[in-house]
């Protein structure tokens, strides 16, 4: 037998994994080879010492003040989040990855776009006949008796109409108050861009996922 094989088998023997057949062959080699026999004795001794060291270790560490088990237990329990999170929905989402992706996407979209629209909340007034319009703060007023000869578009404001608008009135991301005297000849439209955009995006996402 080769001495390298013998060394490898010595380790397997110490691991308790050398089959009986090989163990007999190894024994024969050890009887014939002083070098391997010496190595075997050293390794056997090492194995015993290492086992003893770790078993003594467990006893001495547990018995010493160095390790205050009770204090550590308190620390561990004390640091746990008070109520374990309701995890069932995350587990459910993990099993339905497409829905998980879609809903996360939708939430991110929704929040980011609402934030975006809110950030761009500057009042914008567009029209052909703005002389007839009174603007105070974020209020856009078409007073009683006034007549706007054309279209009027108001973004991010409160629109109050008491007079007459010859063209279309478009209110984007704002509110519209109409007095009883108001008269709008053209088309009147109120648009909530954030919601419309998100709705559009959601429909497209759902379609993409379905396809």
């Amino acid at each position: 037998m080769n001495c390298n094989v013998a060394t490898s088998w010595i380790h397997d023997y110490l691991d308790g994994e050398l089959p009986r057949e090989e163990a007999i062959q190894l024994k024969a080699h050890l009887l014939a080879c002083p070098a391997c026999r010496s190595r075997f004795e050293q390794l056997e001794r090492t194995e015993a010492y290492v086992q003893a060291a770790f078993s003594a270790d467990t006893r001495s560490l547990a018995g010493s003040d160095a390790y205050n088990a009770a204090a550590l237990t308190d620390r561990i329990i004390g640091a746990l989040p008070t109520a374990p999170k309701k995890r069932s929905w995350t587990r459910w989402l993990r099993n339905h990855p497409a829905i998980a992706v879609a809903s996360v996407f939708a939430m991110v979209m929704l929040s980011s776009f609402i934030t975006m629209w809110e950030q761009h909340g500057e009042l914008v007034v567009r029209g052909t006949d703005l002389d007839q319009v009174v603007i105070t703060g974020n209020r856009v007023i078409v007073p009683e008796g006034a007549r706007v000869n054309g279209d009027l578009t108001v973004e991010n404001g409160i629109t109050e109409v008491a007079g007459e608008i010859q063209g279309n009135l478009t209110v984007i991301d704002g509110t519209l108050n109409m007095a009883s005297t108001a008269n709008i000849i053209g088309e009147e439209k109120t648009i909530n861009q954030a919601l419309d955009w998100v709705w559009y995006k959601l429909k497209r996402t759902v379609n993409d996922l379905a396809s």
Partner: protein
Amino acid sequence: MISMEARLARLALKGDQRAFAEIVGLYQDKLYHMAYRMLNNRQEAEDAVQDTFLRVYKNLDRYDENMKFSTWIYRIATNLCIDRLRKRKPSYSLDAESNEHEGLDGYSMIPSDNRTPESETLLSEVQQTIHKAIDTLPAKYKTVMILRYLQELSLQEIGDVLDMPVTTVKTRVHRGREFLRKRLEREF
């Protein structure tokens, strides 16, 4: 039949903190001894144990009952200890990508921490030599030796914990043993 730990884990998942305290009771000492031998530092060992339980608690819903609970918790703990070793001593990464067939003699050149905690004085000189020698081993050998001799895991279980083939575990145990043999023969 499901294991006691799996049962406790299910209860803890439903919000029963006492069930989780039982799990802590079952594993705290084992994990502490392991972490202490990995890190050779009391405070760090305690922190590592706490981190382990916190991670276990937060991931109870991910525990796969087909795996032994001990395998799972040892895996989390060894990973956390190895991370700490990496962060602590970047210069000791001598071994980072060396192959399994390289000799271990070079590692004995790494200076060992000579400080002896009070608890160590209860150990014999031989035992202290062994612990110091193991502490100088690169993390991948150290971990295997600690799981083998301190936790008394089988080679197969060590493979499961570290997610590596048993043959690799075996090689590391054999090399670790040879390394210790040389250390002991030199000193005694």
